[in-house]
């Protein structure tokens, strides 16, 4: 399939932007929309990725007004290849959230505003769902691409850790953050992904590797993971498996004991790292400026840091605790050890197949249903997206069913650097299943 990208001429552009702004009033997909016209294939960029001459806030009040003045490496590469950024997309503050609600402006599902869009890359999923032939540059730490892609009915691809440079990405958890892509089909995402690849001298952890398509037709389902999934979701998922079997895939059920620990392991590592990354927000060099310089610096910092949202505060406090000398080995060191075990275990399976699961253990929830759930419940919803994210495996969420008009997503996981395997399966799926999108702006 050929990759198409929306391109507009000078006369079409203002009208498009006006409709987009109207739509944005309802859904809160964008934090910033570029009014002035420029040629190029249209993309949007998550608001934690720096674009020269645009604000970058990561949806945090503490970053309000920050103008980075430089392009993230991925943005620079895409600009050099004829793409043009039309705006910065809404997200959970700093990436802290699974529903798109931890933002000043709560994101809404483009199929039905009463429902969540998913997060943290909420705006990237929504914009992809409503704009014709759209691709959005997003980012995932623990499931921030798969989750909103599933809820908004688009394809969300998270590459192997390190393949896309993180230079210009506002850090959540550096050993977990991965820049990835939302799109309407495998071909478009693959093309943008290919332009984004390559060694970057500015990011120590960026890798240049030959990518593999292992052409496997073997799919693994992990018993332990399916345990916590809503039985009705399991039922819809089994129908997907049947269709895949009819296309010539084999399905095998497996046990992976350590996967049960992946959620706490992930949150321990991510909070430890996040609490150090958020230490730089002090209210005077960029973003929110307190201006009251005559305050003693400690009081100044404490006052400025009130601008963090509740989830950010929660993670800073917990992360600081996890790093305390008295418990560091019990939590942080231990979690790094478990991550090693999980990677080893999953790699064994992925050497000759792909892992498949629903993307989320639940149907798309209404906003009111999850607005007040407690953090442990919320974190547990990430049980299916966390394993590949914790371990840096490439994975993709794609639409496979519509439940009362709302899309559902399934997730495929491949071994490190086997990113192209995902596109092969997905292309075949797309020849047999027609996605329904929420809009066709443009």
């Amino acid at each position, binding site marked *: 399939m050929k990759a198409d990208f929306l391109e507009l001429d000078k006369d079409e552009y203002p009208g498009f932007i006006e409709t987009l702004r109207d739509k944005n009033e309802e859904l809160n997909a964008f934090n910033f929309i570029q009014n002035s016209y420029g040629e190029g294939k249209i993309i949007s960029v998550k608001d934690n990725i720096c674009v020269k001459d645009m604000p970058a806030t990561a949806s945090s009040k503490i970053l309000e007004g920050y103008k980075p003045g430089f392009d993230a490496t991925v943005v620079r590469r895409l600009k050099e290849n004829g793409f043009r950024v039309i705006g910065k997309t809404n997200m959970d503050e700093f990436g802290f959230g699974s529903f798109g609600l931890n933002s000043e402006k709560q994101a809404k599902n483009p199929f039905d505003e009463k429902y969540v869009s998913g997060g943290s890359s909420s705006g990237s999923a929504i914009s992809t769902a409503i704009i014709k032939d759209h691709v959005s540059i997003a980012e995932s730490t623990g499931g921030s691409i798969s989750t909103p892609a599933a809820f908004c009915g688009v394809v969300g691809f998270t590459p192997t850790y390190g393949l896309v440079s993180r230079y210009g990405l506002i850090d959540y958890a550096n050993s977990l953050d991965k820049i990835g892509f939302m799109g309407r089909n495998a071909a478009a995402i693959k093309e943008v992904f290919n332009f984004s690849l390559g060694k970057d001298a500015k990011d120590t952890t960026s890798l240049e590797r030959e990518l593999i398509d292992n052409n496997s037709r073997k799919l693994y389902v992990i018993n332990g993971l399916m345990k916590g999934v809503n039985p009705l979701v399991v039922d819809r998922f089994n129908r997907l498996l049947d269709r895949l079997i009819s296309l010539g895939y084999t399905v095998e059920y497996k046990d992976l004991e350590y996967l049960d620990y992946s959620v706490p392991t992930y949150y321990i590592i991510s909070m430890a790292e996040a609490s150090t990354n958020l230490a730089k927000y002090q209210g005077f060099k960029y973003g929110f400026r307190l201006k009251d310089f005559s305050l003693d610096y400690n009081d100044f910092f404490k006052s400025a840091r009130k601008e963090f949202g509740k989830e950010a505060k929660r993670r800073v*406090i917990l992360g600081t605790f996890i790093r305390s000398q008295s418990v560091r080995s019990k939590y942080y060191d231990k979690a790094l050890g478990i991550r090693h075990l999980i990677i080893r275990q999953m790699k064994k399976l992925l050497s000759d197949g792909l892992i498949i699961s629903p993307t989320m253990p639940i149907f798309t929830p209404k906003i009111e249903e999850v607005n007040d759930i407690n953090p442990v419940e919320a974190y547990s919803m990430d049980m299916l997206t966390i394993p590949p994210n914790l371990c840096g495996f490439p994975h993709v969420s794609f639409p496979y069913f519509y439940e009362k008009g709302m899309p559902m997503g399934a997730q495929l996981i491949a071994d490190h650097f086997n990113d192209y395997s995902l596109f092969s399966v997905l292309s075949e799926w797309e020849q047999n299943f027609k996605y329904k999108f929420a809009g066709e702006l443009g």
Partner: protein
Amino acid sequence: MEKDEFNRLLATSRIVLNEIESDSIQKDTEDILKFFDKIGSVTVETGEKAFHPVDIPEKLREDSAADRREIENVFENGDTYRFYFLGPKV
């Protein structure tokens, strides 16, 4: 978690909470730590740790100045006085 311990964390991380926030976040913190304690039952025998999910080969920079002026106006984001950045009192 004792209130003192919780307050020590707030002071260390330079976070101030009002009373309502403080109570609710302290409770969350306890719940979440209980959830984290699950990993206590795993024995990691190898002693190996995954600092990154994949091996990151070393990447070093030659000691030469390059790429000056990546940003055109370094003072754009802060308050300044005679080319110094202004900061809080020390």
